[in-house]
């Protein structure tokens, strides 16, 4: 019988949650116009990881749909974030971050 909760999914979520303070620190250090979309993308990713675990316990069909929707939303948010990122500098510069 397949376990209700997949340990890999729990580990994924734990690592993702542990990464939050590190990622937030960089977002605070570099509050550029792409930062909110990176945060949003990561937030959708966390939601997907949570519902991935929950779908083993309740409403498997509904939460599976939600999981994939969150993944898609995460991808779109990350896409907007990298589009809004500044392009590569052509030469060495000493700009303010």
């Amino acid at each position, binding site marked *: 019988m397949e376990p209700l909760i997949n340990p*890999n*999914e729990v*580990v*994924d979520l734990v*690592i*993702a949650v*542990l*990464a939050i303070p*590190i*990622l937030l*620190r*960089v977002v605070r*250090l*570099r509050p550029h116009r792409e930062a909110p979309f990176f945060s949003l993308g*990561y937030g959708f*990713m966390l939601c997907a*990881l949570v519902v991935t675990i929950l779908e083993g316990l309740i409403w498997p*069909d509904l939460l*599976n*749909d939600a999981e*994939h*929707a969150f*993944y*898609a939303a*995460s*991808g*779109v948010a*990350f*896409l907007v*974030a*990298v*589009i809004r*990122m*500044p*392009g*590569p*500098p*052509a*030469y*060495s*510069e*000493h*700009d*303010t*971050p």
Partner: protein
Amino acid sequence: MNRLVDVAAAISVLAFGATTVIALSKLPSRESGRSRTPLIALAAAMALYTFVGFSNVVQYAGITDALDLFEDYAELLFAPLLILAAAATEAQIRLDERSHSANMLQQQNDLLMDIVDTSPVGIMIVAPGGHITFANDPARHMLGIAESPDTGMLTHPAWTLVDAEGGAAPLENLAGDQRISGARRIMTWPDGRRQQFMFSVTPMSDASSSLGGAVVAVEAVTGR
């Protein structure tokens, strides 16, 4: 077959795939001196979820579910790669801050040097032993200071200094820890010529400086 899941998986592949390509297209050149690690790590993380989405698409399309085995590994590596990207970004930000501070300091230094070079007053730095370590052009002109071609050190003719009462007042006396304002000194040149100068001294041996010595301003008063 679930149409919502199919569409979501397809959007995931396209979005994460495009994110990977755009992140790689924004990599700084090697010549720029900027770290490429943040964007490479970010692109790798996005590529992993491109793979996860692709695995789902081919699975739900009934093509194969062989890739499903590797999805867990891809998902497991996602957050560590983002952590790497974040850590490398933070390091680059710190480096930028340091470069910016160094740049500002250099600009301030250049400005001060411009002011010193433009001043009609002679400005020099005298080390504790009386050796002149810096002199602007007016100071060099007034006191005959020149750079030794052999050692690169500043030297001056063997003139002597006395105070208003005729007591010996060598240059090293000015490099003490006393602030002096407008002290008159009479200089006797080796050829016997006498010239009067006014010296003002700000010691450098305070808590904010470990250099020692003093900044000395000098003005010729003879003939006024």
